């Protein structure tokens, strides 16, 4: 049972990340491969506060993490406003690699390459959630909240504004709308989602290290959004659930063990290529 619980819990956390990535990349059109870095910051902040000499409760720690991630995400997407889309790709890669360097080398703050073991489980108003069911329920609740938020935002005039910016930024600016503010607030919302996901992740696994927040993780997030479907709520849910299940499904297929694992990564790559060739909008998305 624990396997299913941990699968659903992780999927819920990744859905939040998927929403975050979808907001930035799919809807606003800011190409970001540094979402895993923000995710990591959220995780490390919550871990820090829960394990401090004077620990604080989970929800306030989560709030602090969300606030920091909002600020950070806005800061990190600022270059995209000055720099054209293709150049920003490299900047985003650079930001992710810089973040990985900080996670790995700032031993005082992040535990360095050894990571932070022994993170306590989440607690609601000082009542710890020890049970796997309870943790899953918490993550699902956060996930549902995120989805509702996303849905409402997309329905509102603000959502239409974001879509319009993607279609034709110049026209929107000419119509007198504040493009900069819209983009920045989308980045802020995306940051909040990622920060909350980070806090949940840290307390669920009870151990975090830089390898969970590196470039490969960012690319996995991108894959989830692309395969699940860009720009839609359903896509953000479908992508994480499917892609987390994929390695497990592939283990059912009999491949000689010597290169089974490389084969699986290869299949990921092939999937990306096939999707981009034949169904770039993903399973449930709109055209990227």
């Amino acid at each position: 049972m624990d396997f299913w619980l941990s699968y659903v819990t992780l999927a819920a956390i990744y859905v939040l990340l998927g929403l975050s990535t979808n907001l930035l990349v799919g809807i606003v059109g800011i190409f970001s491969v540094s979402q895993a870095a923000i995710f990591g910051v959220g995780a490390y902040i919550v871990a820090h506060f829960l394990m401090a000499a004077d620990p604080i409760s989970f929800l306030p720690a989560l709030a602090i993490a969300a606030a920091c991630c909002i600020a950070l995400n806005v800061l990190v997407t600022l270059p995209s406003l000055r720099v054209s889309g293709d150049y920003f790709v490299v900047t985003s890669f650079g930001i992710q690699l810089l973040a990985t360097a900080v996670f790995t080398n700032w031993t005082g703050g992040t535990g360095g390459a050894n990571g932070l073991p022994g993170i306590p489980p989440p607690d609601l108003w000082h009542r710890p959630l020890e049970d796997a069911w309870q943790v899953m329920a918490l993550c699902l609740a956060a996930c549902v909240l995120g989805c509702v938020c996303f849905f409402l935002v997309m329905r509102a005039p603000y959502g239409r504004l974001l879509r319009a910016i993607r279609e034709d930024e110049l026209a929107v600016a000419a119509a007198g709308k504040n493009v900069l503010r819209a983009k920045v607030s989308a980045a802020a919302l995306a940051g909040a989602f990622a920060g909350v996901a980070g806090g949940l992740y840290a307390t669920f696994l009870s151990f975090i290290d830089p390898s969970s927040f590196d470039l490969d993780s960012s690319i996995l997030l991108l894959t989830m959004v692309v395969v699940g479907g860009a720009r839609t709520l359903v896509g953000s849910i479908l992508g994480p659930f499917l892609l987390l299940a994929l390695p497990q499904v592939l283990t059912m297929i009999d491949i000689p063990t010597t290169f089974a694992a490389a084969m699986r990564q290869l299949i990921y790559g092939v999937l990306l290529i096939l999707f981009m060739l034949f169904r770039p909008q993903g399973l449930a998305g709109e055209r990227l």
Partner: protein
Amino acid sequence: MLWLQLLVNGLVTGCALGVVAISFSLIYATTKLFHVAHAGVYTMSGYVAWSLASRGAPLIVAMVVAIAAATVLGALIQGQLYARLERRRATHLVVLIASLGVLAVIQNVLAALYTPNILQFDLPWAANVVSLGASVRLTWTQILTIAVSLAAFIGVIWFAHFTILGKRIRAVAANPFLAEITRLRPQSVYVIVMAIASAIVALPGVLVPLDLGLQPYGGVTPLLTATIAMIAGGVGSIGGAFLLAVAIAVLQNLSLLLIPGEWSIGITFFIFVIFMLFRPTGLFAAAR
């Protein structure tokens, strides 16, 4: 003197990086595509050369075959994948993701065929040391790397400015729409450019592993650093890309005198991000 040896080592790695930068610059300036899979072509050429060298072929033969293999691979990716995506009017994001997929496929095929171990070329003469003065010692491989890289650099500049094909490529790069109308056939130019760039990148693709060993997953960081050099040097400027690549490598080496080694890559990307905020067009941007 410590700094002199560090400087010379930086020049060697910088020259190899410079060739990667100019090959990537050729592709990007012409097709405007962020061909991440270039790192895969780079890695593959090393493995092809190793396969031949370990069966007794002389290095020059191994290198020629590696160049041929890279050319074919590059042309294939462009012709079969990117051209198809272009016909379907895919956005750059879609192409980038497809390219990431190709990279994953190449890296994992290599890992499956050659195991993930770091492989070493078995050429005794390659590691023989030459002393220049009292404090500088270089291996023959390092000397060869500088010589070949400089030759490639000069060759590409001559090609771009003094041959008809080179001029045609520059015309297409400057204005693809006009090129289409004036029957310069951009699509076939793209294939030619990919083929040439892939051939060029095979040179460091063989020489760097000759010095430092072969690994399937090691191509991404040099590619990113080369891209930074390309952008900081100004897209479209071959000289800029090469010079900046050398400058970055030398700086990374010399920075060891001042800052702890684990931060040298982080600092590189940090400087780049600052660069993007204040001077996104690069130092030697080609006139637009």
